[in-house]
């Protein structure tokens, strides 16, 4: 997994609440057996008008946001389906950071598995930055994971919270499975104890 330390990048605004993962990437793109190449599916239905032509109002179709690496959005981003195709598609488009007042739990977890930093800022902070982004072409933010800050071009700095363990894993780009495998003796000890406490959980499950 790619490490995340600091990122200074162009910000794209998605001014909607409750953006669900069906919108981030619709079902027809879930038939793939790969993690890559999902950019085409990102916000697929929102990129088009009813007649199928590109909707120039939608941010992803606007030239000014083409090289954005930070997505700024509203409450409860990533709700609904657990599909990890959502962060894969965001990553494929070039996003490394999503900023919102709140995230759905599964999406939030999935980001960390893919080197994407989800940042929770207060609602009024997001609204204030949203206004600035919409008002100024080329608007960039600096996201500093080490110091847990987001800094605007005007020098305003917002602090965000993150669990220390998750932060460390993302900061160093650690392989989560490899990390757990270091605790193999603890897993074996747990299983040994559990086999006497709850032996029915270890009965042969093959039908």
């Amino acid at each position, binding site marked *: 997994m790619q490490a995340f330390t600091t990122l200074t990048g162009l910000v794209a605004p998605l001014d*909607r*609440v*409750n953006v*669900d993962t*069906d*919108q981030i990437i*619709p*079902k*027809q793109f*879930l*038939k*793939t*057996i*790969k*993690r890559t190449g999902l950019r085409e599916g990102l916000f697929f*239905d929102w990129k088009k008008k*009813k007649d199928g032509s590109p909707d120039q109002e939608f941010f992803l179709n606007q030239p000014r946001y083409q090289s954005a690496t930070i997505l700024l959005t509203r*409450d*409860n981003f990533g*709700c*609904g*389906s*657990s*599909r*990890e195709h959502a*962060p894969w598609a965001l990553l494929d488009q070039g996003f490394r950071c999503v900023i919102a007042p*709140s*995230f*759905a*739990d*599964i999406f939030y*977890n*999935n980001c960390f*598995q*893919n080197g994407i930093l989800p940042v929770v800022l207060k609602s009024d902070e997001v609204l204030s930055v949203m206004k600035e982004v919409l008002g100024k072409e080329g608007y960039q933010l600096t996201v500093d994971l080490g110091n847990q800050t987001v800094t605007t071009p005007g020098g305003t700095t917002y602090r965000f919270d993150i*669990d*220390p*363990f*998750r932060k460390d894993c993302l900061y160093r780009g650690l392989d*989560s*499975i490899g*990390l*757990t*495998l270091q*605790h*193999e003796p*603890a*897993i074996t000890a*747990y*299983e040994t104890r559990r086999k006497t*406490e*709850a*032996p*029915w*959980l270890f*009965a*042969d*499950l*093959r*039908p």
Partner: protein
Amino acid sequence: MAGTTLFDKIWESHVVRAEPDGTTLLYIDRQLVHEVTSPQAFEGLKIAGRRPRRPAATLAVPDHNVPTTDRTLAIADPISAKQIQTLEENCRDFGITLFSMNDIRQGVVHVIGPEQGFTLPGTTIVCGDSHTSTHGAFGALAFGIGTSEVEHVLVTQCLVQNRPKTMEIRVDGTLPDRCSAKDIILAIIGKIGTAGGTGYVIEFTGSAIRALSMEGRMTLCNMSIEGGARAGMVAPDDKTIAYIQGRPLAPKGDLFEDAVRAWQQLKTDSNARYDATVTLRAEDIAPQVSWGTSPGMVTGVDQNVPDPRTMSDEKTKHATERALEYMGLSPNMPITDIQIDKVFIGSCTNARIEDLRLAASFAKGKKVAKTVHAMVVPGSGLVKQQAEAEGLDRVFREAGFEWREAGCSMCLAMNADVLQPGERCASTSNRNFEGRQGAGGRTHLVSPAMAVAAAVEGHFVDIRNWN
């Protein structure tokens, strides 16, 4: 000493180790796998040269892509076929039990887990699918995960987790006649909102919950995720134990007796504290119909479509305007004036035998309206077999419903069962997101009884006084 909740007891008994900040390595007893969210996990295993730690603790089934029409024909969509074939190859390569498409035990992953006795009280259960919360109906801690975590569980039988908070949702009293678990959970989501449960595990309590069958409890827990909670649960009781006993993968003999003794201890202590509590009165719950593009946009069938002009909160107002535009509805129109084109009875929410019995009892002797296309998709091959043994398929067919093979079908329309743009569907599924049942399609979430009545009348009706 302060008591502990049902959630606390299950969590504590699965801690392998904890980091200084509380991040926990949690042991996972059971994993369910389907074709859509697993290929990249198995690919990860192959690339890293890793093997599953306990292949026998995993059960796999294709459900999202499978056709619900004649299974003797090849799958028309080659990409769907490839995904199902990939699951078969991966299960063979890694020694994982698979119920293949033509196995009578095949079905929606959250229907077959309980049906086979794979789902047990006090266990941790995961699946790369957000509706894994369904299994919480048995007093299990069951939640959806991403594909990277599917891989993590295959290799280590553990997950790295942060301890969620606990929320009690208490529903006391008696439901109005013909109202069901689906109406309870829709009313709850309407009350707490789609993010109301974010960061929480919900325990459903109260006399109206105790009165529900296991099927009803599964419907309830299934949609916990629609309220933002990764997991919902109901403490096990005699109904739970009776449901499990004798199922193919359930413990047998002395092991079963030992398990039952442990399961009887699985309940929240009277002096335990939840981090939040929400209460509803069952008597106040009318048959629910969603009108918008998020499960929280829901109201009683006797109400009107809301009017965004009366809303003071800018965020809610804007979201409502957008939803009404997408749904093609006018503010203040009565819910019962909404005309529908399609009816879908199925999904991991409402496609178990009890749902089909209830739906058939309302469909008996009736005819689907000429303007409506209606289909019934059983939750599993075994549910279908049982329904046919009881003659339910005949009731549905005679009323003009199509009777299909088991699968996820039009809940998310990954197979050929898709809404056309602008089509309006009364659906017993769990999500009414934009395009969920097909690009441009419009979904109204309802109970099976409400879906049947809508199919017959061509528009929503109040099931409480329908005859």
